[in-house]
């Protein structure tokens, strides 16, 4: 086992025949030199999408470093081979391999997948199969690797329950070590019973082993999910890193040799979000807010730039302008980098206000090309429904600021298919965009505005988890409404394919029975479903029909208060009562403040897990945030996303 195969000599000749061969060579600056030993648990961390999408993933890079720092573990990386490479590999009788040392995936003890989006599920199956491992967990033998998965989608693990041995729920920094210890003991014992290993894994906090649970049905509905053994927890609680200061990772961010998305130094400045946008799963499942100390942010930026040679750094989080010390950090970084040669700073943010534009102008002294704001909803009423409390005045003040200070392009992100949405709300999107163009034209004839319209998919562990998603026809109609209303407006529109939104809906709130559907779609050749040229809804519809499942029952049906949801045995800490109350409040168009700066309304996370918000500065950021003395009932604050400096290669 220790003498593992180096597949490079067999892989190398294939590279002349595939596009972007450098996807498969590794050698990034910051790559580790993994040393395999028989007493080490070997992890292959697999991102189930292309190299360009997967390489920048911070979660994967963090675990890669943490595991390689351990004496009892070694970790390598792999990314889903593109269709052409898969064909070459299968044709040559080869399988999935690591990019670090080109070892066969089957030679690793653990295959760990990052589930960041539902439409990558079929790629996970394909990677397991390419590794030469049975895709169904029940068919795996003692010598097969243990298949682990984590990431945001693990919060509803059921659609992937047939294929994954163990899910990690929540932050992975701590559980990966604990999993390593369990697997190491199993290796020492001679890798005997797989069942015994799974049972052992199920006792690790934050780890969900689907094979240890039985699902009972009541007709089409789930009656309950119960553990098969007394020592297996009835509910799996997420893991949370209490203080980001203890985890200054990645310390050696990978610098790819080819262009990838987010191709810059990324420094995570906080985790969690308490704005309470009701459609946002990330904000709900990553509570509470944990800010990195300001000084550590500065150090990570300074050292990261020096080590990587990047000319751009992003301060990442779910809403970076909300970092409590953001103005000071930005001012310091801009001053420090001045004169060292054009280092750009970008700050993905959810705010839509003058404060954001102020920071943006501080940062982007030269390249003022595009700014992105995310009002998400077209009218004040619908924005109260989704708890994105930004007023039209906030938005117009922000774009006024942007155009007057030299930006020429404004991009606006919206969702359609939201709960209670009426045509008036949908058309409000076009009206906002038209007005934004008018504001822009006062300043420059070149002013442009692009509307980016996404179909809303309800996500588990959010107040909208009970909402029946809009069907394909309805979303198409709404996209058509906005398109029609934007004609001759000077604003452009881009929209997400409603068919792909529907397929995402199947997987997002699917239960264990949907696993068969995912397997059928994969077997029918449906890999890379996030790529429009590879996606066909027919495959999903056919697979649902073949499994005797009703797609509309899963996607467009409203759930009731008493229904057992497929993920009820997975806990993000949010009380079901809280989510239901928030859902009811949303239907009344009642907003909810940001609890970072206002008294706790007890969503359940901090109290249940004995956690607290960790803030870098005792003062709220200048410019205000929700709950810092502003009148929340009219949303005196501002959610936005403003975008970095340059246009990057598209993710899709």
């Amino acid at each position, binding site marked *: 086992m220790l003498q593992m195969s180096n597949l*490079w000599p067999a892989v190398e000749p294939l590279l002349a025949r595939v596009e972007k061969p*450098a996807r498969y060579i590794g*050698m990034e600056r910051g790559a580790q030199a993994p040393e395999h030993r028989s007493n080490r648990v070997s992890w292959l961390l697999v991102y189930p999408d292309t190299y360009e999408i997967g390489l920048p993933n911070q979660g994967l890079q963090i675990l890669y470093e943490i595991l390689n720092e351990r004496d009892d573990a070694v970790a390598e990386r792999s990314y889903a081979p593109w269709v052409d490479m898969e064909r070459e590999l299968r044709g040559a009788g080869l399988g999935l391999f690591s990019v670090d040392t080109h070892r066969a995936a089957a030679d690793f003890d653990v295959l760990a997948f990052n589930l960041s989006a539902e439409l990558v599920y079929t790629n996970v199956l394909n990677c397991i199969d390419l590794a030469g491992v049975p895709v169904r967990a029940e068919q795996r033998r003692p010598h097969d690797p243990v298949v682990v998965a984590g990431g945001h989608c693990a919060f509803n693990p059921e659609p992937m329950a047939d294929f994954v041995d163990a899910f990690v729920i929540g932050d992975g920094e701590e559980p990966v070590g604990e999993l390593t210890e369990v697997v190491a003991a199993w290796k020492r014992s001679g890798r005997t019973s797989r069942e015994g290993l799974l049972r052992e894994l199920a006792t690790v906090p934050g780890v969900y082993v689907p094979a240890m649970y039985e699902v009972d049905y009541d007709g089409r509905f789930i009656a309950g999910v119960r553990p098969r053994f007394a020592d297996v927890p009835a509910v799996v609680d997420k893991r949370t890193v209490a203080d980001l200061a203890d985890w200054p990772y990645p310390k050696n961010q990978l610098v790819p040799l080819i*262009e990838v998305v987010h191709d810059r130094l990324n420094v995570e400045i906080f985790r969690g979000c308490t704005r309470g946008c009701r459609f946002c799963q990330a904000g709900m499942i990553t509570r509470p807010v944990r800010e990195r100390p300001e000084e550590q942010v500065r150090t990570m930026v300074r050292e990261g730039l020096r*080590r990587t040679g990047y000319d751009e750094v992003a301060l990442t989080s779910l809403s970076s302008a909300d970092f409590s010390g953001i103005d000071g950090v930005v001012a310091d970084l801009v001053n420090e980098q001045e004169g060292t*040669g*054009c280092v750009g700073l970008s700050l993905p943010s959810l705010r839509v206000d003058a404060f954001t534009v102020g920071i943006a102008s501080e940062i982007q002294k030269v390249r003022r090309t595009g700014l992105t704001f995310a009002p998400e909803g077209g009218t004040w009423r619908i924005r109260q429904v989704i708890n994105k409390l930004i007023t039209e005045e906030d938005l117009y003040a922000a774009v006024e600021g942007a155009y007057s200070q030299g930006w020429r392009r404004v991009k606006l992100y919206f969702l359609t298919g939201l709960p209670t949405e009426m045509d008036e709300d949908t058309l409000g999107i076009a009206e906002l965009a038209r007005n934004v163009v008018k504001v822009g034209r006062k300043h420059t004839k070149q002013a442009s505005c692009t509307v980016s319209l996404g179909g809303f998919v309800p996500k588990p562990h959010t107040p909208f988890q009970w909402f029946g998603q809009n069907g394909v026809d309805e979303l198409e109609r709404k996209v058509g409404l906005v398109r029609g209303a934007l004609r001759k407006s000077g604003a452009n529109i881009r929209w997400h394919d409603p068919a792909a939104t529907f397929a995402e809906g199947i997987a997002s709130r699917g239960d264990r029975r949907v696993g068969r559907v995912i397997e059928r779609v994969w077997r029918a050749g449906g890999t890379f479903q996030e790529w429009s040229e590879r996606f066909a809804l027919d495959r999903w519809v056919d697979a649902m029909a073949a499994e005797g499942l009703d797609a509309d029952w899963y996607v467009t049906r409203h759930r009731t208060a008493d229904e057992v949801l497929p993920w009820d045995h997975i806990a993000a800490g949010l009380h079901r009562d809280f989510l239901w109350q928030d859902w009811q409040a949303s239907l009344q168009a009642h907003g909810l403040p940001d609890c970072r700066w206002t008294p706790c309304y007890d969503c359940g996370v901090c109290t249940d897990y004995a956690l607290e918000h960790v803030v870098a500065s005792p003062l709220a950021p200048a410019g205000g945030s929700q709950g810092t003395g502003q009148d929340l009932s009219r949303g005196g604050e501002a959610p936005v996303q403003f975008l970095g400096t340059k246009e990057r290669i598209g993710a899709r």
Partner: protein
Amino acid sequence: MRGDTGFPVRLRFSKRGKVRFISHRDVARAFDRAFRIEALPLAFTAGFVPRPKVSFGLALSVGHESEAEFLDVELDHAVDLDPWPVTLSAALPEGIEVTGTCALAERAPALQESVTAVEYRVGIIGAHSAEIGGLIERASASSVLEVTRTKKGREVVEDVRPLLRAMTVVGATGDVTAVDLEIATQPRSARPGEIVAAVGGHLTAEHVLRSHQWIERGGARLEPLDADARMRVPEARAS
């Protein structure tokens, strides 16, 4: 474009091994980052988006290796170039090595315009070396050597014989015949694979290594590091 105070430098580098699968553009980005890592005093272009003043020579195809790649970079002031092969190589991806440097004369012509010929060592498969030798002789004796190129989606036939300077079998290992190939680069060059396929339709250039680039000027044939070097390297300024 070179100001009076700038310090233009030319460097030679190799690209060997796995890193040969990255593109010309990727190599440029790798140098961009390496210059930053080494905190070299780069001169920047004026304008809306200041860029370092770096220019590369002829592009190398993805998958080809090279021992003779060059780039010109302008520094703000003179520095000691001696450590570069060690320091810059360490900041570059494995397989890209800086193998020589020179301070450039002012107003030296750009690499792209001044290189007139390129040499390759090509590993050819598809026939025995004796047969390949015969095909090369025939092609060399012929006045026309046609290749089919795709231009704007349309196939056109072009004669590359005027570009073919020399082609010689130098050895064979197993199924692979090693051939030295020299191609002219002006007005427009040809790819080694095109030449090989034109010599014999059943032949394939399995491995390509660029071994030299030449600047031919006034009857002399010069390495790019020698052609436009400053006569006397100025004393490095402490900075």
